[in-house]
């Protein structure tokens, strides 16, 4: 029996039953937990001043340094844990900016239509056509490479996919009868966008956020890898950058490369799994017609034909 939260609880229920989604969610929660608990988990403080001798550089993993040391003799595990903070922060904030811009643009264009839509969509098309990464490189290189700038740049360039998605969804919601009814009652555009369109577009935006987080982290890692990262912070991308540019390969220091790489892959994989599972969980119920809701034919889960039911068999 669906309760007062209506569709949302059903979404959560379906998500729970999706193994891939739960794996992704657990992975993401784990990554966030690691980042938050970094001060307690890391064996060393991040800015420990170490006296560096030639022996301390690129030390392999040992009981003293579980993931070895990097080119400056710092503990890689500590770097990894604190690097999670930077990467995830950039990922979440940049994604939030991108989805907000894309969402507002998409709803406005999709709902108002006409010239406004044409202008906004042409603008979106232009932004889509311009290659994101070279543009990001140029902008960051010209301005001061700081964390804020990187977040802003990634966010301001990454909204195009969201905008298109939200616009399409808005256009389909716009056609639905309850919007027509709201108009018949006398509601204006802003009321309808706020009360009817936005709540139905929101789930889509949430899913999109998750997927954009992975893109944002990848973007940030790429920018840092290219040397445009904030030198005052150490993200996973920067760890990769330093490792590459400072001879980890030739020193055979695989731990300095694998750790940040693994971190990036972990979070991106988590977001992708969770995002896809959310898409599936949202799909049937929230936005559909009565034919999917109450009818017994479609509300029962599908079994494999050779799976015997609890009581008796019988032909198909």
């Amino acid at each position, binding site marked *: *029996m*669906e309760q*007062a939260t*209506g*569709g949302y609880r059903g979404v959560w229920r379906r998500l729970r039953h999706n193994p891939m989604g739960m794996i992704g969610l657990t992975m993401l929660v784990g990554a966030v937990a690691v980042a938050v608990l970094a001060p307690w988990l890391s064996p060393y403080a991040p800015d420990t001043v170490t006296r560096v001798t030639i022996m301390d550089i690129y030390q392999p993993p040992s009981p003293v340094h579980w993931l070895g040391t990097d080119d400056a003799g710092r503990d890689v595990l500590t770097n990894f844990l604190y690097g999670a903070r930077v990467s995830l922060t950039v990922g979440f904030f940049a994604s939030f900016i991108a989805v907000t811009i894309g969402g507002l643009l998409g709803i406005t264009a999709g709902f108002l239509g006409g010239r406004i839509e044409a202008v906004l969509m042409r603008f979106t098309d232009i932004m889509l056509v311009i290659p994101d990464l070279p543009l990001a490189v140029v902008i960051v290189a010209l301005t001061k490479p700081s964390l804020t700038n990187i977040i802003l740049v990634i966010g301001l360039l990454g909204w195009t996919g969201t905008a298109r998605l939200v616009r399409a969804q808005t256009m389909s919601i716009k056609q*639905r*009868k*309850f919007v*027509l*009814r*709201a*108009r*018949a*009652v*006398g*509601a*204006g555009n802003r*009321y309808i966008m706020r*009360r*009817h369109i936005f*709540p*139905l577009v929101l789930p889509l935006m949430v899913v999109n956020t998750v997927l954009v987080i992975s893109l944002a982290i990848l973007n940030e890692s790429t920018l840092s890898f290219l040397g445009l990262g904030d030198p005052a912070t150490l993200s996973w991308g920067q760890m990769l950058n330093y490792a590459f540019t400072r001879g980890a390969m030739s020193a055979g220091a695989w731990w300095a490369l694998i750790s940040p790489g693994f971190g990036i892959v972990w979070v991106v994989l988590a977001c992708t799994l969770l995002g896809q599972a959310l898409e599936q969980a949202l799909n049937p119920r*929230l*936005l559909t*017609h*009565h034919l999917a*809701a*109450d009818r017994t034919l479609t509300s029962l889960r599908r079994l494999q034909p050779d799976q015997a039911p609890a009581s008796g068999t019988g032909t198909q």
Partner: protein
Amino acid sequence: MSEPLLSVRGLRKLFPVKTISWRSRQQRFVHAVDDVSFDLAAGEALALVGESGCGKSTLALTLLGLEAPTAGNIRFERQELAGAPAAAWRQARRHIQMIFQDPYESLNPLMTVGEIVAEPLEVHKIGGNRDERRKRILLALEDAGLKPAEHFVARFPHELSGGQRQRVAIAAALVLEPRLLVADEPVSMLDVSIRAEILSLLADLKTRRSIALLFITHDLGTVSAVADRIAVMYLGRIVEIGAVNSVMTAPQHPYTRALLSVVPAPNPRLRRQHIILQGETPDPVNLPTGCRFAPRCPVAVARCRESDPALRPVAADHAAACIRLDDPPLFP
């Protein structure tokens, strides 16, 4: 004679046809509503009947201001609405409300019943405090037959049956205490055993609360349960209009006669002659000269194509648009 609540004269709604080819210069139009005139008194129910493409839904949307009429007058409560500014329409919408066909689609799945019924109050900023609004909502729900109202206020649409959802839509229409209710196929998507309930609710609202009702349907069987008068539409025109008993027992226009002869009757002993028209209702873009029903009319003659007949009275409160009305009986 007291003035009717709603008075429509010469209403036209044309939609331009989007021509893809740049060769044809002439703009063509879909004549969705083409010169429609009728009156509706307070507390009276008029059934608007016709097949798909006849323009009845467009007419409903025009009366609610959701489509701007191309020409004609809409006079509601002595105020001219056609071409009026948005503010005048906003005022009028407090007194004209609409019920849609699909009880599943016309309610936002994320809103509770209470929120849906409260929407008109919210939009028009009526009902100062929460308590007063809640009282009005509960009253509207009870009027629509959802008792006890408190039980339904926190429910979501998908928890209710089709009939209950339609009642929610009716409650949302009643909360502003309208004078005119436009119901577009209100029961066609409901089970047969539920239809009678909703129809008798509408009839009840009409008599008890003196709400005028414009009842749009393609199902001729449901007309007499609710309506006092009936208007039959074909290709954007009213071809016959009059009191329900008069029109349904003694139809005059060939189209009406054909329709009534083919509506399936649950009576296997009845032997009727079915006047089955061939082909389909033509596109309301290229209208033939003369009577627009002539191409399919089983009793059309040459002079039918010369002029487009206007509505002529044939009996008290019964008019039909056909030039052969005076001819000897056309149908056995």
